[in-house]
């Protein structure tokens, strides 16, 4: 194996370089020149090269490498195959944009904090690369835990505030619940031999143990991905973290959980069963609807985006679940299509959600605001950020011709393969899940009309807010580094939306390597212009032609209107039905915009509302919406844990003789059992 031309070796080098940057940030303490000016741009360069190695490996055969590190008899195994290559591409390309942005965003931090952030940030990136490259359960778990810990420290960057510390604790707790499930899953799959993935792949599991392994993997990785009911950490941790970190976590870290799910379920366990698909679909549909409905109720921008991450994980799960159903019933073509749709959405979500979090970060930096109800009219002071954010908002709302539409379209096309299935009930269930997706897509559009309309359009809502006073007197747009980062991701939204066929071919390689079967030959032979999921007469979509026609038609209209009619324009105060008293506080707020949703979906929320009575001298309206999961799941479990630990606490007597007695009894018991 030529080390330099091997993508595996090169990726390993890239991951190690991230570690080196992490370490270097600490060395010149006091003089933070490296961390301030060089660390993040260098990290972005490494990300780009990692993306290119990943891209290369998608088209090559799988490669393996054993490192002489780790425990005795347990060396680290590394492997790169099309699936790992695809996720490295995602990690590298998305992190490049975020790192450039972070270079601008963190510039104003003090030297000590900056060095720490840079250390944890690059450690986090490297650990995600190792999660993807790992080829044995041991290295995988080490990388997985490093990822959880480094991101925990990043979340609690502002640890002076108690709310952030408790958000970090919740995150760490759920991360470890998931890690335990993953560890148990590897234990279940272990069939003698060592813990390398090759051995796990070769292990023969009975259907019962395969299902146990599936459930453990699904819930273990699902906790990290943020599917219900294990999502509770997400809306707490994302707003707590600095914006580039939220972008990394939501854009990339959640995707490592999807990687883990696909790796373990499709590759290591293998022999996918359709019943598993139904479980994934049911949880996916619940996650999708729950995420978007709660997102609509939020007025904290980053919390809202976090709930949308929950929703998008649900959409990915819908694609995966459909794929598993089709594979389980022996329809590999439709199964591959579902997998391709899910992975496409994984990449899309990484790009647009990172972009949106970065946009939220720029708003926070420029105005100090995160509550939508205080914002308004930012398009005037931050026109560039407004443009990038608009692209991200249209992409996440699944509007053609941007990227979110492509993956949802592919998921719909997968659902439309339902007549292939022999099982009557499942056949009619699949379109219902597509209906869920349709509803979620339309609700997302509503939510982002709300976000964009309230934050960027209209007029500032709280004129007395100090941030607005600053903004009115020559407010500023995002810095240049921040803009480059957002521009890179916005370009990603366009490229992924306009040239889907090349990505389809790439994902087809991933599908072939996992299921042994890719898309139909007709789908693969279509030209780059046409996206064809199964056969051209069944369905096709061409975003380029679509965009060109829209542009042409709009330009012709503008030309005709300009040519035939005068262009006289007067500027005046808004009319608003001739209403005389207009204040900026009469505009819709984020909470007002969600009112129809509260009305239509009222029973789904846990709502505490106070309406002012007619006699109240100082009328106030308040509403509090809580997550039901806290009451039926989290708090009972927490109480149970408290109760159990209080009982265990009875053992602690604080006298040395009693502890010696415990040791003695344990020894006796062990001697009885071991003999």
């Amino acid at each position, binding site marked *: 194996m030529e080390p330099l031309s091997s993508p595996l070796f090169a990726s390993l080098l890239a991951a190690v370089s991230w570690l080196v940057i992490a370490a270097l940030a600490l060395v010149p303490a006091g003089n933070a020149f490296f961390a301030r000016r060089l660390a993040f741009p260098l990290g972005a360069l490494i990300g780009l090269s990692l993306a290119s190695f990943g891209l290369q490996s998608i088209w090559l055969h799988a490669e393996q490498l054993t490192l002489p590190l780790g425990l005795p008899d347990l060396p680290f195994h590394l492997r790169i195959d099309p699936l790992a290559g695809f996720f490295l591409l995602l990690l590298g390309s998305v992190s490049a944009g975020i790192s450039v942005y972070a270079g601008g965003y963190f510039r104003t931090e003090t030297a000590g904090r900056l060095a720490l952030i840079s250390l944890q940030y690059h450690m986090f990136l490297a650990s995600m690369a190792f999660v993807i490259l790992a080829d044995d359960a041991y290295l995988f778990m080490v990388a997985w835990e490093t990822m959880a810990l480094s991101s925990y420290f990043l979340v609690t960057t502002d640890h002076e505030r108690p709310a952030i510390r408790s958000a970090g604790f919740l995150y760490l707790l759920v991360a470890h619940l998931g890690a335990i499930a993953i560890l148990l899953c590897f234990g279940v799959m272990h069939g003698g031999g060592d813990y390398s993935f090759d051995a796990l792949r070769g292990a023969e599991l009975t259907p019962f143990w395969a299902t146990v392994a599936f459930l453990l993997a699904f819930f273990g990785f699902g906790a990290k991905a943020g599917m219900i009911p294990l999502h509770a950490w997400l809306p707490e941790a994302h707003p707590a973290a600095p914006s580039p970190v939220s972008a990394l976590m939501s854009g990339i870290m959640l995707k490592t959980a999807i990687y883990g799910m696909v790796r373990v379920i499709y590759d290591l366990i293998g022999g996918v069963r359709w019943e598993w698909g139904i479980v994934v679909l049911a949880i996916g549909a619940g996650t999708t609807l729950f995420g978007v409905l709660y997102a609509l109720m939020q007025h904290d921008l980053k919390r809202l985006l976090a709930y949308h991450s929950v929703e998008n994980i649900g959409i990915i799960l819908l694609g995966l679940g459909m794929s598993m159903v089709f594979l389980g019933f022996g329809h590999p073509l439709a199964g591959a299509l579902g997998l391709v749709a899910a992975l496409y959405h994984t990449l899309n979500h990484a790009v647009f959600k990172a972009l949106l979090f970065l946009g939220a970060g720029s708003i926070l930096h420029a105005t100090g605001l995160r509550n939508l109800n205080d914002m308004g009219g930012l398009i005037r002071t931050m026109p560039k950020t407004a443009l990038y954010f608009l692209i991200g908002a249209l992409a996440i709302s699944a509007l053609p011709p941007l990227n979110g539409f492509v993956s949802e379209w592919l998921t719909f096309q997968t659902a*439309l393969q339902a007549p292939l299935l022999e099982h009557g009930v499942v056949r009619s269930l699949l379109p219902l899940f597509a209906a869920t997706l349709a509803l979620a897509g339309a609700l997302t*559009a509503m939510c982002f009309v709300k976000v964009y309309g309230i934050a960027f359009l*209209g007029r500032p809502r709280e004129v007395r807010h100090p941030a607005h006073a600053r903004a009115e007197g020559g407010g500023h747009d995002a810095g240049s580094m921040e803009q480059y980062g957002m521009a890179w991701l916005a370009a990603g939204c366009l490229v992924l939306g306009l040239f889907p066929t090349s990505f389809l071919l790439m994902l087809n390689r991933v599908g072939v390597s996992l299921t042994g079967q890719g898309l139909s030959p007709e789908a693969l032979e279509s030209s780059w212009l046409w996206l064809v999921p199964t056969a051209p007469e069944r369905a096709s979509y061409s975003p380029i032609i679509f965009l060109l*026609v829209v542009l042409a038609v709009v330009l012709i209209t503008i030309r005709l209107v300009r040519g035939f009619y005068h262009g006289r324009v007067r*500027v*005046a105060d*808004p009319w608003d039905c001739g209403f005389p008293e207009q204040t900026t506080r009469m505009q819709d707020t984020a909470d007002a915009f969600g009112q*129809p949703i509260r009305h*239509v979906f009222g029973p789904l929320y846990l709502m505490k509302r106070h309406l002012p009575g007619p006699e109240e001298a100082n009328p106030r309206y308040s509403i509090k919406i809580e997550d039901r999961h806290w009451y039926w799941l989290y708090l009972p479990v927490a109480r149970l844990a408290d109760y159990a630990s209080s009982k265990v606490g009875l053992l602690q007597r604080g006298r040395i003789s009693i502890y010696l007695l415990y040791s003695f009894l344990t020894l006796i018991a062990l001697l009885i059992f071991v003999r």
Partner: protein
Amino acid sequence: MNQLPGIALQVLQSVLVVLVAPLVMGWVNICRAWLQNRSAPSIWLPYYTLAKLFHKDAVIANTASPLFRLTPYILFGCMWLAAGIVPVLATDVPFAPAADIIALVGVFAVARVFSALAAMDTGTSFGGLGARREMMIGFLAEPAMLMTLFTAAFISGSTQLPTIVETLAHREFAIYPSLAFAAVAFLMVLLAENARIPVDNPATHLELTMIHEAMILEYSARHLALIEWAVAIKLVAYMAIGFALFLPWGIAPAGDWSALPLALAALGAKLALAGTGLALLETLLAKMRIFLVAEFLSTAFLLGVLGMLIHFLVR
């Protein structure tokens, strides 16, 4: 393969729809006036209104951003595009493979999102109110619309509208119960999406009940003209989708130029009939309270889903 005649037909068809759309609006208004025992306005009135609006000076709110001025063009472009995707006269539309029914729903969604954003752009109280209500109707109507289209897609095994029309128009005469459900659902969605009674009233500026009108309050002159025109095209496009799914007879098959005159006559007859039906519905029904719309549209959604399930049961 020579695409030229197809492209000529495509351009002809979309220009025809754009030009005829105000006439359909005029026809609906006449029918409604007759049914309500009023003396009818001229059928050309919508054209006069458009001409008048184009000649006025535009007034733009001083709080508006460039998005506000661009939106009427985007709306008009989207509706024109939709009119190009739907096989109105012939199934030989070379543009159709670029966008199937799901993308068609996407085009309408783009138009809706931009008009809602433009409504919020001026920062007035009615704008936000209209945008919020419009998006509510949107999220209820869009899934219902997709379910209806999926039923047709399952029957014909394709999401391309020309293929759907070819399959449905040339089948042996058989009654599809699933299509009956889908048709009712589609009709309800059509009423909601085009801001017609009982969901919205296009003829009034009653401040507290308006939806679509609240969004376009700040528009004037040529921008308003483009929006009004786009609304007319949207109505015709929806009617054409309905014809393609439920009354596909008469649409000329690919490459058959001699069938075009017949197709044109059939289209005229169908549009006249649909316009009369719409006027009749609007005369018989009363506008409903805004939150009854949610029930109205969830009924449409359930009917769509039922239609789809029945297709699986009966086939």
